[in-house]
């Protein structure tokens, strides 16, 4: 394998061989494949849905004709797979695949396949040469065993220089159930065990708008009621989450403006309130903000409390003398938010007994309050 990309060049009077022209074609297909796989993620780009048409046999047994709609996908090698027309899934192909397991969903895959086109009549070249001069970028519809969908991410990745190749990369389209009695499909679904078709995406560390407004939508712009996210320069800068109105606009549900103000139509899931100060032995740590004992008693509120001894200059009344130091003896919060804080005073200037007193501590309390 070449370790460099070669660009074919031509000179006047050069006799061009097939390899020279093929090199030019390979260059562009390789560039496109590398773009597709390194700047995008593989998957369905458009269409390619499995649609079921309920049918019944003459004996009254229900089955389904399954059709793959037209569309396009990009595989893991960056190869474009185009299904130009709706394609009826062939039950015989399923039977030939030898993957049947009763009552289970079988994944349906789209796989790129090259096919030589028929030789061109009156083609230019050596006399009586019947070699093909076209290749069709076709596809096949494959069937897997139940659970094969879990192996989608273990498919062989290309080397950097590789072109689109013919890797046999599988793109999941959906699932079918099959009846060996009827030799037909009987059901279709797009998801099994949480895995459904994967759609092509973008690999980008930066996405930049040119109009001053960057929008992300979960569905097409005309689809009302589906979510969208907009980063907009207007009004000094806003971030808007909302639902599409079907006419290209977004009905805001949550807006953050350039000052950081948050405006929500609905409820904020959890409110964090905090407080700090000092509190003495035997008391409860004050609840922060407007939080009440009744609200805490209802439960579902998470309190985090930190205490540390509050050092002051002694001595405590009625002791006298300048050189007393405070030692924390106990400083903790009990289950009911009650503070237990004792300190021992020690004279370092003169011999004097140690004196233990109720103490005062600094507190920090943080409450996580679910919005009602």
């Amino acid at each position, binding site marked *: 394998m070449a370790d460099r990309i070669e660009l074919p060049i031509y000179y006047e009077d050069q006799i061009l061989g097939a390899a020279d022209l093929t090199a030019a074609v390979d260059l562009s297909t390789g560039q496109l494949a590398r773009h597709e796989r390194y700047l995008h993620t593989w998957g369905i780009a458009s269409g390619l849905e499995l649609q079921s048409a309920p049918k019944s046999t003459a004996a009254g047994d229900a089955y389904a004709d399954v059709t793959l709609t037209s569309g396009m996908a990009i595989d893991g090698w960056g190869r474009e797979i185009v299904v130009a027309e709706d394609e009826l899934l062939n039950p015989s192909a399923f039977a030939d695949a030898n993957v049947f397991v009763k009552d289970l969903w079988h994944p349906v895959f789209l796989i790129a396949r090259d096919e030589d086109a028929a030789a061109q009549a009156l083609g230019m070249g050596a006399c009586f040469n019947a070699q093909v001069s076209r290749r069709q970028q076709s596809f096949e519809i494959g069937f897997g065993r139940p659970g094969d969908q879990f192996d989608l991410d273990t498919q062989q990745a290309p080397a950097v220089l590789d072109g689109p190749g013919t890797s046999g990369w599988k793109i999941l389209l959906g699932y079918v159930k099959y009846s060996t009695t009827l030799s037909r499909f009987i059901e279709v679904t797009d998801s099994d065990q949480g895995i459904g078709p994967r759609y092509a995406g973008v690999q980008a560390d930066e996405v930049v708008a040119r109009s001053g407004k960057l929008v992300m939508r979960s569905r097409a712009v005309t689809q009302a009621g589906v979510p969208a996210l907009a980063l907009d320069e207007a009004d000094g800068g806003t971030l808007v989450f909302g639902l599409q109105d079907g006419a290209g606009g977004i009905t805001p549900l949550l807006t953050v403006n350039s000052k950081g103000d948050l405006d929500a139509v609905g409820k904020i899931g959890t409110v964090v309130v905090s407080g700090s*100060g000092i509190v003495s032995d*035997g008391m409860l740590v004050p609840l*922060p903000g407007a939080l009440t004992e009744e609200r805490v008693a209802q439960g579902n509120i998470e309190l985090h409390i930190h205490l540390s001894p509050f050092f002051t*200059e002694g001595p*405590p009344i*009625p002791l006298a003398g300048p050189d007393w130091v405070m030692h924390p003896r106990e400083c903790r919060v009990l289950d009911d938010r009650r503070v237990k804080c004792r300190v021992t005073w020690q004279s370092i200037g003169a011999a004097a007994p140690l004196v233990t007193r*109720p103490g005062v501590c600094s507190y920090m309390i943080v409450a996580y309050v679910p919005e009602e």
Partner: protein
Amino acid sequence: MSEKFYLLIQKDTLDVLGVFSRGASAAAPAPADVAGESLQIFEAETGDELARVPASVLEVKDTTFITDVVTSPLAYRWNDAGAPLVKPSGMINVAITVATGIAAVTFNPVAADTPLWIRIEEGGSEVVTQSHKLAAGATLFDTAQSPFQAGKQYGVICLIRGFQPFINFINT
């Protein structure tokens, strides 16, 4: 520091029993907000639960931050002028006699109608809670009742306005 400083006092004797502060934007709390049903008094040396002061006899006062009050809250009482004031060094002595009850003796004679509040617990249960006003010159308060038993340890809080509090265990 954007916070307000408060004292928790016994509303009759005006003894400061606790100090606390919180954010200035928060409303002044009620006594129950910082004491619960009762303020728990622990014995300083051992940390054992001594007795409780019900929130119903407590009051919250806001004041400025004073280091000495934080260091020795029990040495202060609330002043009619609206500030904490260090109490005189006068002590109270409390004795429990199983046969006759409890007697509180002040170091100095008291002024007329001096409030007294006393709470006695045993094993976390209330035994005696009384409010009283002492007559002028009195130095002795006798509960004139004796729910006490021999061989017990009672936690005693005795507050008399203008005196250092008595907070201790008494063994009978």
